[in-house]
């Protein structure tokens, strides 16, 4: 299936969206991804390892993300750790999805369904 149409990947599930967001500013290993998501969502999305790696497996399959090549790691870093990063296709899908979401928010705002302007 790989890199077909980015549009066909939409809409993304919450978990996939947040993983993409977590990787948007650089590569991370699994635990760090989960930490970041928990942090940015104020603990609303707290995923266990099974859920996370299930999603990672699917996202690898869809070429949204890839494993970062071996790199020099800090000394205390466990050699088991694998780092993941966005593919260019993944970045494109993320952008499309964010565009779609802001479209949704715009409409909602026009209809005065959204009160505060907290959405970035």
């Amino acid at each position, binding site marked *: 299936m790989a890199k077909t149409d980015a549009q066909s990947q939409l809409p993304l599930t919450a978990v996939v969206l947040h993983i993409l967001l977590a990787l948007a500013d650089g590569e991370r290993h*699994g*635990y760090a991804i*989960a930490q970041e998501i928990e942090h940015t969502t104020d603990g609303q999305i707290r995923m*266990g*390892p*099974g*859920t996370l*790696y299930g999603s990672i497996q699917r996202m690898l399959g869809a070429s949204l993300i890839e494993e970062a090549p071996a790199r020099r790691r800090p000394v205390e870093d466990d050699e088991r750790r694998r780092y993941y990063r966005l593919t260019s296709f993944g970045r494109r899908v993320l952008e499309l999805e964010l565009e779609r979401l802001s479209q949704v928010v715009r409409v909602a705002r026009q209809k005065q369904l959204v009160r505060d302007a907290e959405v970035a």
Partner: protein
Amino acid sequence: MKPRVSIVERLYRASLALYPRAFRDRFADEVREFAHLRVRAARCKGSAALARETTSLFSDLTASIAKQWLIALREPRRTTTDYDTPTVDALPRDNMDIVIQDLRFALRALARRPGFTIVAALTLALGIGANTAIFSVVNAVLIRPLPYNNPDQVMLVWGTQGQQANQGVVYADYVDWRARNHTFTEMGAFRPQSVNLTGGDTPDRLIGSFVSASLFRVLNTKLSQGRLFTNAETEVATKAPVAILQYEAWRSRFGSRSDMLGKTIVVNGTTFTVIGITAPNTPIPLGAPDIYLPIGYYPNANGLDRGVRGILVAARLKPGVSVAAAQRDLSNIAKQLEQEYPATNAGTGAQVISLKEQMVGGLRESLLIIVGAVAVVLLIACANVANLQLARGAARSRELSVRAALGAGRARIAQQLLTESVVLSIIGGVAGMAVAVGLTKALVTLIGPQLPIDATDIRLDVRVLLFALGISIATGILFGLAPAWQASRANLNDMLRSRMSGGLASVATRNSLVIIQLALSLALLASAGLLTRSLMALQRVDPGFDGSNLLTAQFRLPAGKYDSPDKIWAMFERTVAELRAIPGVEAAALVRASPLSQNGESYSIEIEGKPAVKAGDAPQMLVNSVTRGYFSTMRIPVLLGHDIAPTDRMGSPGVIVVNKSFADATWPNQSPLGKRIKIGDEDWRTVIGVVGDTKHYTLNEKQLLQGYIPHAQRPQIFTSIVVRAKGNALDLAKPVREAIWRVDRDQPVWRFRAMEQDLDAVVTSKKTMMMLTGLFALVALLVAAVGIYGVLSYTMTQRTQEVGIRMALGAEMRHVRRMVLGEGMRLIVVAVFIGLAVSFGAARLLRNQLFGVAPLDALTFVAVTVILAGVAMLACYIPARRASRIDPMVALRAE
């Protein structure tokens, strides 16, 4: 030093093995690391956070494993080679070659270690044999189709009255249902009832069935000789005195006479001509009779009148029609009949149930519970054998590493080990057949009589054998997975370097297996405990009468000979007098339906001053006819008023004695004496006494509202005898029979039973279930105890050196002992927690089987926890003692 890893975490890690291979190979390490970090973070926040985290990790894991299997099964051959260590089998071989080579190798390996092989095979034989035996019962009862053609089409139709289901059917309603329905190809009526056969040396009793000709078409009944009834012969208006004999009755009662057809026999005082003999083993719902007679001859007065619920109905669905559709059809007809005959049919309905469901529906749950229990035993046995194999893995590591060094891939070694496990389990399965044969025999005698099927149907047929083969292979794979997985993960370097394989990971797996064993044993113990408490509660139930030295029997007078109430009552009166004159009889009386005989009649009643709100809503009373002296014979206390008087006879004002529950419910805070009740369409009866409550159909029934009327005021041809003996009740059977023959020498009497037999029979089925579950629980406990013993002994041998050093440094024996016991204790505590959780679930499943005990009965759960912990501690004590006796010098020199 490696960081200390908690048992819960080890369990988590071991559970990762449950992931499908592709996912596991790629992500297991990362998942484990992730979980470890989570646990470490939670531990800093205190034990509550740790508990929350553990729960969330395990639920995440469970959901994720399930999901991954769904994915794996959807795309079975995903290429995972990117992540795999490539397999380096020396020469590409044909698949079959590999299998044969593996088999040969497996057999050789097993033969080399006869001790291990025998212990493992016996454990498996026990588990597989027990499962096979239980399955043979399930197969006979639940799976094997009933012996009718297209058995799924055969239905029973019951009458309903208001809220009451499972009522007999009114003959006239049956005639209308049969004429008006669109969903059945045929509908037949039948009424089993014992009949009197006279003309021989002594009067004999046969089980009869009064049937419509159409019944044979519903059941597709086949004859070996003669012909079936014609429609006209069975109808009320055109009935003809013809009879069909059941094949077995023809053989036993009539000595297989070849000239039976056309012969006449006298049944219930009427002469019938035998026109047919059924094929051997002809089945008929609800018990095979000896003789079939036209339903037109059904002897009860008013037996076939509108408004009298006398008969049973069997029917065959048209092909493709569902039970629900048939139900709607009959319900509509019942509604029409309600409008057409408002006087008799108000509130009357029909209820369709498949014959299969009718026969085994009530048994399904208890059988499945036993299946569950025995399956758990097998699981525990599997865990044990897996543990044995893991321990053996240590000894085999050199062999495996040599194979690996010679180029066998990990997958190849794992496959080899798995083959070995399956071969072992099949050996166990074959040995298990011996266990199964013995157990099946025992089961047939133990529970055969309680089953609605012919007990000889419980046998090891092809389906059972296939089942045994299936579970043997499944078992082998199940307990072979852990060792195979272990071997496939082991690092070649480690293996060659060390004498031990697996190391920490192996200990973790083994600990998890022991925890599973103990936890499952606890659940079984708890279930057995709850069932035992139910049984005890049931045995404590006061039936309301004294069953000791009490003899019961029954007889039915031929309606032709006793054609008036006066004649019947005269016979009854003389009978009671004769019975009381028998030496050794303390008291005697007649009762229409004796307790626990399963006879009994309920009537809608009207209470003076309290009219029923609407039709079909009237209170129901279990009405029994008794002679004076029944209460004193049964030792049922008369609480208010008095027993029936000799003057309460035909023609005198109607009287009734009610039980305490009825009096309390109907006239709270008032004296019931002098109040009036109407039974059906009788005249008013005045309450003259209140007696204690009694159980009637079974011991755990909700207390019924009961009324007793004098036999003398409504003599009916059927009655039971109750005789209180001074000595052993059954010794009186012969004198009682002769006493009745002194009154009427043609009268057969049957069902001589000591009341204590009937009381025992009520608890027997519960006892069987309790005994089976208890037996399985004990086996489970034993196997689990051996399991924890084995694991601790194994760890201790591995730690001999450590212990030696400790002791050399001044540790005392009791310190060492405490250390080992502590290790065992940790396993037990975790197992108890998991086990209790499983037990609570099991208790909920058992809910319907319990009586007089709450599913979460604290006493039971505390008791079984203590038993499990006690036995497990005992099993730990032996290795602990051994460890504390280690001679430091010997231990240190050993390395």
